[in-house]
């Protein structure tokens, strides 16, 4: 019993010592503090501002009106009222529109054929031709979507009027025209806004970025200076690695439990991005995420021989880990190999769970698969981090003894 208490007491001292050492290392490293703050806040604010218009509006398109009848002008004014596109009607022919297409002034062309009005009155079918540039999906969707909707309504107007001319009531005419109506509602992010979609993803990703960067920088410096042992004197005692590891992770977890609410508080309020869960829920969910990332970072950091290396590593892995989270391109579209790989990165369940909690108002039981996944990852990386820390300090001691010989 006594020996157990002794062990506990030693571990406790070692734990608080490592907390103090790690905290001082962070505090005294000006460069680290500045990167920490700039990535956690400035990057997030800049990105949100970048996408703050949320949806693409008024994509310029050309209209080539070969008919010049009243019906065609009605059609154009109908197109004009759609939010997504901005019609430019002063084109005499397709050639002229082409020139502006080449110089990126318009993103699509709508051609109204000759005899458009006449054909419609005669009950003949006529065709609207649309050319839409799909080199960017966002404005392509706007152009094709808005033209389709306008044409659909124009069609319905004609048919329903005809039907009413036969003596049907308007309700009956509508029912005749579309026997099955579609009602589509987006459950969350109702305007399909880009910022509302991306920023929660980014917030969760930044947790991983900043932590990996900070851990990498600090560990890289210790690598350069060879002062692992003098900083953590008890690390090589029996079972001494674990309190050190826990002490380190305690510092980072505590730091982020302060940063996270500030991020959400400032950015989400400023750009009116919804938060649909309580702060406590976010805390409970983030705990295993933070731990998993910290242990992952410590396990990885032995790869960084120098201070700068981690900065680079982070820049290179940020886009792939965003892609692999499955929120930008559906996971089903990846080859099997990547679907397995992505399960080992903490950000995958971290991002998914964070988005579900804050955006989709998921209850805690609905994010429990992610939560359990994160605990599992935390455990695996905890073991790996213990091993690498031990190896690193053993190596350092060897070097020291070699030198003193």
């Amino acid at each position, binding site marked *: 019993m006594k020996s157990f208490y002794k062990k506990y007491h030693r571990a406790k001292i070692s734990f608080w010592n490592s907390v103090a050492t790690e905290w001082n290392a962070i505090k005294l490293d000006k460069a680290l503090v500045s990167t920490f703050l700039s990535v956690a806040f400035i990057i997030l604010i800049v990105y949100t501002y970048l996408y703050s218009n949320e949806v693409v509006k008024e994509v310029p398109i050309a209209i080539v009106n070969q008919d010049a009848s009243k019906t065609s002008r009605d059609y154009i004014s109908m197109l004009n009222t759609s939010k997504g596109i901005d019609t430019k009607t002063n084109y005499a022919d397709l050639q002229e529109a082409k020139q502006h297409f080449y110089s990126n002034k318009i993103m699509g062309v709508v051609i109204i054929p000759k005899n458009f009005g006449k054909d419609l009155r005669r009950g003949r079918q006529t065709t609207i031709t649309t050319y839409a540039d799909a080199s960017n999906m966002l404005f392509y969707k706007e152009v094709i979507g808005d033209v389709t909707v306008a044409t659909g309504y124009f069609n319905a107007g004609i048919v329903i009027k005809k039907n009413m001319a036969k003596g049907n009531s308007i309700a009956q005419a509508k029912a005749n025209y579309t026997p099955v109506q579609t009602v589509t509602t987006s459950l969350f992010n109702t305007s399909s806004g880009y910022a509302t979609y991306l920023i929660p993803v980014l917030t969760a990703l930044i947790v991983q970025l900043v932590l990996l960067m900070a851990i990498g920088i600090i560990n890289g410096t210790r690598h350069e200076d060879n002062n692992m042992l003098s900083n953590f004197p008890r690390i090589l005692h029996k079972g001494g690695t674990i309190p050190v590891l826990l002490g380190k992770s305690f510092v980072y977890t505590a730091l982020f439990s302060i940063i996270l609410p500030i991020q959400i508080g400032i950015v989400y309020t400023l750009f009116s991005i919804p938060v649909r869960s309580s702060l406590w829920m976010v805390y409970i969910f983030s705990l295993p995420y933070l731990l998993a990332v910290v242990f992952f970072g410590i396990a990885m950091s032995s790869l960084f021989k120098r201070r700068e290396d981690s900065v680079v590593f982070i820049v290179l892995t940020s886009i792939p880990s965003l892609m692999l989270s499955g929120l930008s391109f*559906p996971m089903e579209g990846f080859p099997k190999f990547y679907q397995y790989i992505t399960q080992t990165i903490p950000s995958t369940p971290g991002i998914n769970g964070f988005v579900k909690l804050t955006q989709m108002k998921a209850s805690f039981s609905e994010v429990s698969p992610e939560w359990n996944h994160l605990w599992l990852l935390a455990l695996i990386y905890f073991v790996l981090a213990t091993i690498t820390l031990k190896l690193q300090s053993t190596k350092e001691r060897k070097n020291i003894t070699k030198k003193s010989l």
Partner: protein
Amino acid sequence: MKPFLNIINREFRMLFHNKAIFIFAVILPIIAILFFNTLLSKGVARDLPIAVLDLDNSSISRNLISQLDATPEILVKYKPIDQLEGERLVKEIKAYGLVIIPANFASDLKQGKQTKVINQYNSNVLLPSGLENKAFRKVVATFSAGVNIQKQMANGTSISQAKANFQPITSDNHVLSNPYTNYSYYLNSGFLTYFLQIFVILTTIYCFGVDLKYNKGEKLYNIGKENLPVIIFAKTLPYTLWFLFIGILMYYSMFVLQDFPLTGNKIILLLGLFLLITSTQAFSLLFIAVSRSFREALTFGSGFAAVSLSFSGITFPIFGMPKFIQYLSQIFPFTHYFELFVDQTQRGIPIFFSFKPILILIFINVFVFLISYKKLNKLLKRGSFLERT
């Protein structure tokens, strides 16, 4: 000429002795090419799982479900027992949408009453939910048109007349640039060239930074016979050529191995690649010149390269951004390169219209080089950064 060759010689030795430079210049580009070419090899999302709640359970409703299932985008994977369970599936992102067929669907149709089919989707996953919603609308519209036309034909109208009655105006849609709306075409080409410029910026900063961090800048200055243009030229040229080679390899993987559309001019495309590499190198020199430490230069450089993706308009078109950001985006060489790239590969426009990005890239090249020249000269004379870290 001799100092020039000496520095190049020194650079080659450094490439194989310094692990970091070797990794950035040789290993990572190849990994990136492999990664992005295999990640989105399917390009188009197919068989997105959805949930269907059939409250009607008639042969007609089942017909609609099998039509939904038959579209390439959608896979009817879940049949929840009630709406709550379905919404839960959507929340857990197991299903991208929940389609609800109301009770009395078949009998309403037979009576000539209007009926509704509901689709609840999840716009927090922007891309798949958009595809799901589009496919859903298409299927139901076709289904609805089928009912309408059948009714008309029962009244004795011919099928062609019935079609004309239903749809006085037909649409003839032409998809330019990317006819299959393949995401791989526009995401991969963006990511690959984006990563190329990250590697260029990292390698250039490293190859100068390693010298300056360990106080070898002075030595470099002496080898170069105190002639700054020669030093810079000799130090960057090997990498310009090397990354041009990597870029061509990347083009090869896109256009030959993966059949990405290439409808423009190949020479202009190569010229654009060359200018992207040199102007990125010019920016790297600027970051080295203004930084106090190696790490700072690296942070500036990698930060600059990292955000250039969002400023280039791949994800969100530039004209949809706030005005201030639109002006800011013009600083990044990648923005202009990507415009040229899309114009000359997918859009296939005449060369004349690509002169603008080319001229801008040349201007950026010269301008950035000129403003960093003086400071760089001072830095190399001093031989090291102001601070070690």
